């Protein structure tokens, strides 16, 4: 199988901007091209990850860069859209058809809770079963009941991520909050509070990926290997954060993160202990805690201990969300995974400044959302 490497990375800050999707998307794409030292005419295929943007957004954004004969395809897989799009790019290169591909994530989202019609049935919306955070919150409640996870442990994750974001110029909120402020912020859906939850916003991020041969041929600076690229939809009832109308009390299918991590670690030939830094889906602070367990950083039920012991701090053994996570960056759904990937590339190149993980050689990016969609990308220096 051909080795696929990232040779260029670009990002438009996440936040609220008086700019079109074409403007923020082409900004990230041009930055990735410049980073790769390539011209738009060198690219042989492009994939756009987006959820809210309209049909043909890939073409609308990228034709700004000039005319092209290449395929440009929009990809949607809920919060995992970016991982699904990156995987398509990887497959295009592994197949041998392409040497160099652009993968762009871009999004512009309305304010407030996500539009429920995108993921819920009409009757669920009418009965009030369509507030996205309620499903994640129910998972948190059950975890607290079973394992004794506390409000304070959940708040500590939000505290860590907000604090990390102070050093990230591309985050929407770059403000440190005290534990008292976080625990004093209003409940959205018990036990999840306002300062523990991510907001929708705008943003874009892009990578130029290539076969290792092509990267060598053009003398690419600091190529980063895509060691694992996996997207899955979990089996029936494996995860009730997907808005199903009923869940099984008996089937015990592997959850979306568990199955995706198993496949991604296998593809990369490594395990959690080999990963130096993680960017994961902190839709809310509890979600990150549970992902510690599902990515095998610790046994099930011990996520709270990890945050208590500082294991997931930038200086810890398993740093998580050095960028500040979605809690501080916001979640422009289509762009969020590519944003994580750009952060990991920066970490592995040693270019992350105050949020740099010392000596990082392997990094993992993880997204998870509606429908049980999960994607994981593992990168290696």
């Amino acid at each position, binding site marked *: 199988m051909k080795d696929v490497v990232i040779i260029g990375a670009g990002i438009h800050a996440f936040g609220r901007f008086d700019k079109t999707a074409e403007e923020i998307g082409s900004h990230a794409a041009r930055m990735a091209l410049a980073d790769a030292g390539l011209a738009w005419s060198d690219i042989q295929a492009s994939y756009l990850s987006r959820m809210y943007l309209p049909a043909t957004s890939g073409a609308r954004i990228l034709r700004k860069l000039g005319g092209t004969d290449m395929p440009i395809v929009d990809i949607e897989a809920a919060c995992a859209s970016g991982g699904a799009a990156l995987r398509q790019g990887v497959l295009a290169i592994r197949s041998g058809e392409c040497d160099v591909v652009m993968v762009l994530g871009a999004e512009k989202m309305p304010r*407030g*809770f*996500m*539009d*429920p*019609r995108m993921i819920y*049935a*009409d*009757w*669920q*919306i*009418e*009965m*009030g*079963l*369509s*507030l996205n955070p*309620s499903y994640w*919150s*129910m*998972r*948190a*409640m*059950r975890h607290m*009941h079973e394992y004794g996870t506390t409000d304070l442990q959940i708040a500590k994750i939000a505290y860590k991520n907000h604090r990390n974001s102070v050093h990230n110029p591309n985050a929407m909120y770059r403000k440190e909050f005290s534990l008292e402020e976080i625990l004093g912020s*209003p*409940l*959205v*859906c*018990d*036990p*999840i509070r306002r300062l523990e939850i991510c907001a929708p916003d705008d943003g874009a991020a892009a990578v130029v990926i290539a076969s290792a041969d092509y990267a060598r041929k053009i003398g690419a600076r600091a190529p980063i290997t895509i060691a694992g690229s996996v997207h899955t939809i979990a*089996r*029936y*009832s494996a995860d*009730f954060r997907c*808005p*199903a*109308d*009923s*869940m*099984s*009390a*008996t*089937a015990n299918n592997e959850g979306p993160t568990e199955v995706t991590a198993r496949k991604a670690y296998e593809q990369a030939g490594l395990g959690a202990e080999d990963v130096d830094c993680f960017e994961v889906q902190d839709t809310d602070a509890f979600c990150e805690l549970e992902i510690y367990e599902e990515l095998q950083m610790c046994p099930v039920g011990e996520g709270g201990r990890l945050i208590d012991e500082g294991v997931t701090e930038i200086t810890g053994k398993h740093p998580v969300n050095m960028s500040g996570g979605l809690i501080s960056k916001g979640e422009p759904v289509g762009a969020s995974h590519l944003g994580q990937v750009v952060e990991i590339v920066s970490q592995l190149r040693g270019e992350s400044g105050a949020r740099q993980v010392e000596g990082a050689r392997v990094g993992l990016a993880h997204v998870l959302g509606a429908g049980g969609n999960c994607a994981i990308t593992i990168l290696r220096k």
Partner: protein
Amino acid sequence: MTDSTPLSDFRPVRSGLMTGALDDLASVGLAGSRCRACGETTLGANTLCPNCGSDDVFPIALSDEGKVWTYTVVRYRPPGDYKGAEPFQPFAIGLVELPEGLRVVAPVGGDPDAVRIGMTVRFTARARADGVVEFVYNPAA
């Protein structure tokens, strides 16, 4: 027009979800389906088993009484075409585990701050002013 909704106008919030006569709310229950191939039970009248894909599925009645397996309190007005109380009042939703082996996502009635995991709750059909019959699980007396 009369003040009350004509009986013939009652309709379920989702087709295939309920059993019984909608104009006699006490007779209404939740419809379920069971798969002969894998034994999985699912909510509503289904023709395919989402667990194994088999089409050998038959209807079963679901019990009215269950236990709260987990819950949360919705403290902001849900987006879109929400038909609950106006002005918005916080309410609990939960996964209610039924003895047939499934957990139903549903509103839980009563004081939202009094809901607890393990609490026994009972299915209650209720008719909205627009004639749509929906449901809630109320704390068992």
